[in-house]
Each structure stands twice: as structure tokens, then as C-alpha cells.
């Protein structure tokens, strides 16, 4: 009987020969993560339950990234609790303002995740690390507290849906569009409780940043995890991580067996996918960007754990270089990490964006969840490269969020309405 890559990783972590979908196992956690929203609750639960010692400080990561740099006094108090807990328990992987960035950008970039690892995080977008052939999934604060005390997590072994992307995506179609298109096809609970395995020649061609974007949004289809098979691009990425890091020195490569059992196999023609936008108020509410030219906007946000990597900022800069942000639009750039910030400042990306009229922030989740750094008023509309467009997600419950890739976000910032790069290039030529 064949197994999927996800079943193999879970079996390894659970110390079992094999596992079957549906079975509940207790698996060893290679890395457990929490942030400034979820860690304080976990710490309170850990201490209230009477635990006084973490099982292995080296396998715990704490990243205050949501409301940091601390946006108000309450936040400062919450982050202080996390900082003090990290010091008390000798947790070296505590990364705050100035030394870090958004959790799901920095964990793989710092080389903390190796292929075949089992990672849990008290943040729903923890599913991101499937891009390096790890099993990673979002959990709650109590799960994180339990993992700190016990080093383990209970998991129901998920069934897998395999998504096979044929053909070559067209111009300005990136990982974000493949994923929005997929969520539009299957719905926000189309992969509920399941692992999403991404394969096919369009995925083989997809750069690692696009793979991070796709795995990151598995949760938006209800998925437990997203995963891409290990290949040359994975090796290349892992080998460029810091010397001596887990990514370069540890891990085990697993692959799905040809006779592995899938809940479903979905075939997608990647060549037919256009730059895609998810309209309010669900990520599954997708249409081609070019159909939304009558939607006027007030703000554009480029960044987040979904699209806050260097390649994402470069795509926005490619469209905005030498152009100006529309006078009615505020463009906010939220780089994913200090490393991304620095790289963007060195290669001209930051200059192109700032000269076009963008506000360039320090790394933070900030505006993505309506925390700070770009909250929307009632009646305002934003195009964002983020991951959710629920009611009130970026601010007032009467505001609206349209999800898009960085090319579309940048073109929309120029046009003042939703647009593709081709639409603003034509306008320029005609002027």
C-alpha cells in the first residue's frame, strides 16, 4: 500500500512504520512556533497548568510580529510577557523588532526548517513550510503550550488532495494566482482537514517564493497543510541558508509513492489562469483582475507572510519603477523580514517603490489583520497581497479587501482602480 509524503512524515514523527488517513497519532514536534497574539495565551495556560519547564528550548520559536513594533500599551505588555518567558526558559529563538520579521518568512529563511520536519505553529499560516517538503500546520495556543511541555502534538492523519498544474502560466501570473484560482475552484472548505499536495510542470517551474505563497494559503481552502515535492529548487534554496543551520545539516527527504492513495486528484490548466483577484468577503470569491477595472480603491498593501518576500517586492517595483502612485491611493509596503528589507534597499527595489510614492514599513504583519500600519475606515477599499478578505479583516467592518498578486497590486496603485500591469502600460503609452 503506497503512502503520501504527508503520511510518511507523520509516521516518522510518531515513531511508526506507517500511518493511515483518519488515524489519530501523537507525533514528536521538531519545531513549535507562536507569536505575540497566541504566545501570551499559551504562556498563561502553561503556567496555570503548573508546568515549570519546557521540554526542549531549542525546538521552540517565539516571534512577536503581529502588532509589533508594539502598537499600544497592552501589546507592549503582552510582548514583554513573551520576552520574559523566553529568557526564563532559555529560548534562544526569540526574534523581535529589528532582528526578525514575519514568522513564516523568517523561519525558513533562517534555516530553522528542514525537509521531512514536523512543525506546528500557533498561527494558521504555519502551513507555509510545505514549500521545503516539511509537514507544517497551524494549531491553537493550547496545542503550543502542550508542545512546549510535552514535545508532542496530537494529530489526525489527513487525507491528501493532489492538485496537478499542467502547462505554463502566462505573464504576471504567479503562485498567488495559481492558489487563488484553486481556492476559487474548491471553496474555502474544499480541502477541510486535508493535506494539499501541489504537483505538475507549473509547480516544477515555480520559484520557491511562489511555492511558499501557495502552501501559505492552504488554510484558505480549509487545508491542514500544503506541500510541494522535494526537487532541485528545494535543494538550491536550502543550501543557501545560513551555514550550520538545520536546513543545511538536518532533515530527511520523503516523496509520495506512485500508488499513494488520494482523496481526490484535481487537474488544473495553469496556462489558462489569468492574474486573479478574490473579491470581498471570501478568498474563494475569485475573478480575473481585468474584470474589476470599475472598482476604485483607497489603499494598496504589498507584503505579509503570503507575499512579503524579496521577489514579491521586486514584482511590485518592476511595475512601479518610474511611475507614480495614484493621488487617491495610499501604497504601503510591509517587507517580510529585516533580510528582505536590506536586500530591497540594496538592489534598488526600495528606491523604485518609495520614489513612486510608497510608504515603506519595517517588517510586521500589521495591516494584514487590521492591527496597525494601514487600518481601513468604513467605506474604504484596499487591494492587498495578503491572504484574507473577511468582513473587518483590515479595519472597519464596512471596509473591503481585494486579494491579488504583487503585479496587480502595483498596477492598481497606479491606476486608482483594480488593474493588471498590461492595463497601466497601455494607458501610459496612449498618454
Amino acid at each position, binding site marked *: 500500500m503506497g503512502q503520501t509524503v504527508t503520511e510518511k512524515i507523520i509516521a516518522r514523527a510518531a515513531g511508526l512504520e506507517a500511518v493511515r488517513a483518519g488515524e*489519530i497519532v*501523537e507525533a514528536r514536534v521538531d519545531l513549535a512556533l507562536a507569536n505575540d*497574539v*497566541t504566545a*501570551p*495565551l499559551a504562556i*498563561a*495556560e*502553561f503556567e496555570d*497548568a*503548573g*508546568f515549570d519547564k519546557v521540554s526542549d528550548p531549542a525546538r521552540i520559536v517565539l516571534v512577536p510580529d*503581529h*502588532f509589533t513594533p508594539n*502598537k*499600544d500599551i*497592552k*501589546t507592549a505588555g*503582552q510582548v514583554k510577557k513573551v520576552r520574559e518567558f523566553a529568557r526564563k526558559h532559555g529560548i534562544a529563538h526569540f526574534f523581535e523588532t529589528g532582528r526578525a520579521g514575519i514568522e513564516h518568512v523568517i523561519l525558513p529563511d533562517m534555516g530553522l526548517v528542514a525537509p521531512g520536519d514536523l512543525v506546528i*505553529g*500557533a*498561527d*494558521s499560516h*504555519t502551513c507555509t513550510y510545505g514549500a521545503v517538503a516539511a509537514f507544517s500546520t*497551524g*494549531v*491553537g*495556543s*493550547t*496545542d503550543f*503550550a*502542550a508542545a512546549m*511541555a*510535552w514535545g508532542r502534538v*496530537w494529530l489526525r492523519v489527513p487525507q491528501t488532495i493532489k492538485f496537478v498544474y499542467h502547462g505554463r502560466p502566462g505573464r504576471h501570473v504567479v503562485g498567488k494566482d495559481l492558489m487563488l484560482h484553486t481556492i476559487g475552484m474548491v471553496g*474555502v*472548505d474544499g480541502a*477541510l*482537514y486535508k493535506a494539499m499536495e501541489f504537483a505538475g510542470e507549473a509547480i516544477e517551474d515555480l520559484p520557491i517564493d511562489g511555492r511558499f505563497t501557495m502552501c501559505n494559503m492552504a*488554510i484558505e481552502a*480549509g487545508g*491542514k497543510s500544503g506541500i510541494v515535492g522535494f526537487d532541485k529548487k528545494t535543494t538550491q534554496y536550502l543550501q543557501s541558508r545560513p551555514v550550520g543551520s538545520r536546513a543545511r545539516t538536518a532533515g530527511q527527504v520523503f516523496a509520495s509513492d506512485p500508488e499513494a492513495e488520494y482523496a481526490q486528484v484535481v487537474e488544473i490548466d495553469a496556462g489558462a489562469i489569468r492574474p486573479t483577484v478574490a473579491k470581498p468577503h*471570501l478568498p474563494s470569491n475569485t475573478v480575473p483582475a481585468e474584470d474589476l477595472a470599475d472598482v476604485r480603491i483607497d489603499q494598496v498593501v504589498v507584503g505579509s507572510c503570503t507575499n512579503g518576500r524579496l521577489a514579491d517586492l521586486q514584482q511590485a517595483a518592476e511595475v512601479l519603477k518610474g511611475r507614480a502612485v495614484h493621488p487617491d491611493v495610499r501604497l504601503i509596503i510591509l517587507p517580510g523580514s529585516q533580510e528582505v528589507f536590506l536586500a530591497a534597499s540594496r538592489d534598488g527595489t526600495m528606491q523604485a517603490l518609495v520614489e513612486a510614492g510608497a510608504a515603506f514599513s519595517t517588517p510586521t504583519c500589521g495591516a494584514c*489583520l*487590521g*492591527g496597525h500600519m494601514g487600518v481601513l475606515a468604513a467605506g474604504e477599499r484596499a487591494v492587498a497581497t495578503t491572504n*484574507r478578505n*473577511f*468582513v*473587518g*479583516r483590515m479595519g472597519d*467592518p464596512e471596509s473591503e479587501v481585494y486579494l491579488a498578486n504583487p503585479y496587480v497590486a502595483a498596477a492598481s496603485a497606479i491606476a486608482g482602480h483594480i488593474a493588471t500591469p498590461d492595463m497601466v502600460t497601455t494607458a501610459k503609452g496612449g498618454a
Partner: protein
Amino acid sequence: MAFEGTVHKYGRDVDTDVIIPARYLNTNDPAELARHCMEDIDPGFVARVRPGDIIVAGENFGCGSSREHAPVAIRAAGVSCVVAASFARIFYRNAFNTGLPIVVCPHAAREIEAGDRVRVDVVEGRIEDLTTGKTYAAEAYPPFMRELVASGGLLPYVKKRLAEDEA
């Protein structure tokens, strides 16, 4: 484990951003979270809800973020249990881990109306609409989930497991 209360009814895909908006996540105080529970989907909820009331909703209840503040807010608002056609997976875990009783029953979720008086036996999976007199059989808890519930949540379960390992 049985509860009786008045039903507050919602549709499908009730996400954690409407259960407890992120702007209130700079605290983990249950009483304060409860004051803003369901604020962006049903602003009158907090004033209307009575201790023991029951939420009935469609598919994918609790989708979105991993914030445990969502089940915490619901419980602290006085809700005794949630019946839904299905639950988003992180919300499902969080509910069991923290002791918010939940029941999966698409049939009941479709038919039960707002304002009905309902009695729910969560472990046995029996739902009775006292207003209409109809009864529904819900999905029974798998053995592991029964053990979690019997232990009083995940952390007491972990304590027990750690004690067993030492013995």
C-alpha cells in the same frame, strides 16, 4: 455532558475575524474578549446572549486564524455549546483542547431555527429541539476526543501522559 439553551443561528463560513476581531487581540482576558464576541457579524449578540445559550451554524464554523481567543470569547460570553454542519480544523482542535463543547450535525444545523430551545448531549451526540420536538443524531466523538474531554482538556491530558511516562 448535556446543555439546554436558546439558539443563536448563523450561516456558513463564520470566520474567526467576526467571532473576535483582531483589533481586540491585544489581550487574552476572557471577560474582555467576551464583550466583543460576534461583534462584526451580529452586533446585538452580546446584549442578547444568556448563560447556557447555544450557537447553531452552517459549514466551516471558525474558519480563518488560529486564535484560541475565538472559542475563549464564545465560552466567556456564556455559550454552552456550538452545533455546526462542520467546523474549520483549527477551531475544532481549539474547542476540544480548551473545553468548549462542539457537535457536528449538518441535519440539525439546517433545521434548527434561531430562538428555538434546544437540548444537546455532546458526548452521546443527541440533539433535541424542544420547540419543534424533533431529535437529531450527531457524529459521536472518536475515542481519543472522548479521552480529551474526560481529562478536562489537552493540558490535563498531557500532565497525565507525562506522569505515565515517568512511572
